[in-house]
């Protein structure tokens, strides 16, 4: 078993983590950067299987490498052994990583909402189909509906179109007015406005709807047909794939295990991206959904602070404040409407791991009681899918994270310090 150590350990190699690793290394720190995925880039800069990583990711990684940042790919942090000491699972076995300071850049997950038929093969998360297409799923020529909520839908629709898919329509649950107001506010962010304009240009020809959402997916064994509600009307499509998610949820499990305060689902940080635990910093979507620009800025601040720099550079500070205002407008514009709670019927499966239906849950008043009684959220995904859904549907808090944060072998949970020989000699010869 291996033990590693560094001045700064960055967990997550998305935009926030890459920026943090670069800033910390450029400030002179010895940096380890871990990510569960095989390559750096995180969600937005995920490398396609048959092409180069996107330019900004390449650039940050070039700088990181230049400064000697050590990347541990396919290395998922699953536990906290003691203060500033993490345990991670890697292809070669479990590793212990000691850190002078930790930067949490664990990103976000998509929120899925259950509706009849959502468990059929062919139904994907919106970012999920993009990730799968980047890892080899053929989408060219496929008829795809994009639905749910948030700007991610537009990015995914444009991506799918570029890959040659036939995007039948985009169905956004938010009201047109709210989205228009949000779009208007982009005037304050010229860079984002240009990106948005380019994106909308790419989407020309794809029907877009607001106040619209999927109500039913059908098919024998695979998705064949989707019914969506647009205002008061229902429409049906024959299709190959559905790409659907309802916004993003910060990934805060590791922060919670470290004892950091989490409020409204996001890791609480101050101006230096410090969490409430000494020497633990957080940046990017883990601290609230703000998009890639804010992830990079926060990462840079966190990385520098973790390496010992005192105050954030004033320019970064100003930009971050602007980005946070953007994040607040984003959350407001794409707030989930209460009608979506009615999508899930009594016999709709909520927990995919244990096949728990909504009707089996609603008789319990307490989330923990329901989970214990039905095993909802106790399968391998540990509530990552049903947790955010039930948070919206029932107001239930997300399951409390515990060791291991992701399923790992029993061997990985046996730490180096445990004296195995003591128990091995236990078998005296008979």
């Amino acid at each position, binding site marked *: 078993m291996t033990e590693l150590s560094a001045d700064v350990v960055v967990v997550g190699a998305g935009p926030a983590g890459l920026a943090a690793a670069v800033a910390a290394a450029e400030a002179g720190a010895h940096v380890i950067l871990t990510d569960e995925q095989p390559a750096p880039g995180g969600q937005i800069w995920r490398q396609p299987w048959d092409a180069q990583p996107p330019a900004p990711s390449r650039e940050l990684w070039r700088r990181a490498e230049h400064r000697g940042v050590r990347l541990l790919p396919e290395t998922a942090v699953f*536990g*906290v*052994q*003691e203060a500033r000491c993490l*345990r991670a699972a890697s292809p070669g076995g479990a590793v212990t990583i000691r850190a002078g300071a930790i930067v949490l850049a664990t990103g976000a997950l998509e929120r899925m909402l259950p509706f009849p038929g959502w468990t059929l093969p062919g139904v994907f998360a919106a970012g999920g189909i993009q990730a799968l297409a980047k890892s080899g799923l053929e989408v060219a020529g496929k008829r795809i509906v994009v639905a749910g909520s948030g700007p991610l839908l537009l990015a995914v629709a444009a991506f799918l179109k570029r890959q040659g898919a036939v995007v039948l329509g985009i169905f956004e649950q938010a009201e047109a007015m709210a989205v228009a107001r949000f779009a208007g506010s982009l005037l304050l962010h010229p860079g984002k406005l240009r990106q948005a304009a380019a994106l909308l240009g790419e989407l020309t020809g794809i029907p877009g709807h607001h106040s619209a959402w999927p109500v039913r997916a059908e098919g024998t064994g695979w998705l064949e047909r989707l019914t969506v509600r647009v205002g008061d009307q229902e429409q049906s499509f024959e299709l190959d794939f559905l790409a659907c998610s309802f916004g993003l949820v910060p990934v805060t499990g590791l922060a919670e295990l470290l004892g950091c305060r989490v409020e409204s689902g996001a890791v609480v940080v101050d101006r230096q991206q410090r969490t409430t635990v000494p020497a633990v910093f957080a940046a990017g979507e883990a601290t609230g959904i703000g998009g890639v620009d804010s992830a990079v800025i926060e990462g840079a601040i966190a990385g520098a602070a973790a390496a010992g720099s005192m105050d954030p550079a004033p320019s970064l500070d100003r930009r971050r404040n602007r980005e946070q205002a953007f994040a607040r407008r984003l959350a407001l514009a794409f707030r989930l409407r209460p009608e979506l709670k009615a999508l899930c019927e009594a016999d709709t499966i909520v927990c995919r791991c244990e096949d728990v239906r909504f009707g089996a849950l609603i008789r*319990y*008043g*307490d989330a*923990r*009681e329901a989970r*214990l*009684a039905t*095993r909802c959220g*106790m*399968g*391998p995904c*540990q509530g990552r899918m049903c947790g955010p859904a039930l948070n919206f549907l029932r107001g239930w808090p997300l399951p409390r994270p*515990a*060791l*291991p944060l992701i*399923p*790992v*072998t*029993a*061997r990985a*949970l*046996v*730490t180096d*310090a*445990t004296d*195995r020989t003591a*128990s*091995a000699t*236990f*078998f*005296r*010869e*008979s």
Partner: protein
Amino acid sequence: MLPDVIVVGAGIVGAAVAEALAVAGCRVRVLESAWPGSGSTGAAMGHLLVLDDSEAQWRLTRLSRDLWDARADQWGAALEWESCGTVWVAADGEELELARRRGAWFAERGVASELLDQVALRAAEPNLAAGLAGGLRVPGDSVIYPPAAVRLLLEGAVRHGATIAAGTPVKRAGGGWVELTNGDRLPAGAVIIAAGLATPELLATPVEGLALIPKKGHLAITDRYPGWLRHQLVELSYLKSAHGSAPSSVAFNVQPRATGQILIGSSRQLDTLDPTVEPATLSRMLARAATYLPRLETLTILRTWVGFRPATPDNLPLIGPVPGQPRLWLATGHEGIGVATALGTAALIRASVLGEAPPLDPTPYAVDRVVGWMAHA
């Protein structure tokens, strides 16, 4: 006339007591501070077993196992009942001798068991390490899912007219009354406190010497591996860990669940109320399990958690009336076998409350024995 009954606490013990008294015809109210099963019971393995540690423990476990068995047909599937039996695993010749003696003791008392030699042990559990001396199979032991048992028992009570008030913390209780934290005072013909570890602090008039010791335990559960494990396996030196006074110990104790998952225990820590999973203890516990089941190390662990067993200094539960406080009973202190012994406990309480003949001699579990505990401490 039958008394109106208040049961404080809806763990496995409170649920069983509520059901027994409701079925007997009492009007039963269950007051639970959080939700049913939220205490030790929700954290437990559901091993139903007989134990020969002392004559008193034997009688209570034996009675209870028979009472559980009587429910198997009706409730089996809902309880996730597994008739898997226990295998007490002997590491060496010395432990195999212990196994043989335990088997003989069981036989004298009419409980079936089977001594396994090295070969038979491996045939019974192919994933066990080579070189283990053998074991004792007790085919009549089983496994259930404790939260399901609480639910079924309370449903039974409700069918017989009981009411369950979850989210209703009791502040204190005395002979024939309880006071809620909201100030309401409720009278009752009989009050049974089955509040687990919280029991002593609920007594308005303290019982001198009464103390419960929290014994923290860790558990880990795997993904589904149907057929991987066939019996509940426990190391023969288990009772040393269970009853020892070492501040921290681990023992090999694994359980096959109806889902094909494997529940891995166990640890015991005396000096802590920390509700978090401790990596170092978990590590020792899993390493211990892997010395018996080497391939266990390759299985995937989904979750880990901890619970606190309500223990007494003499390793026997407190079941019976509180001396000098008429209309007040205690039912707690079952340490690591409260699920296994819940139905026997309920039968004893029922007999005591209704003045019926007890199903077994209640003296060893009587509350008045705590007077001596101060002197020991």
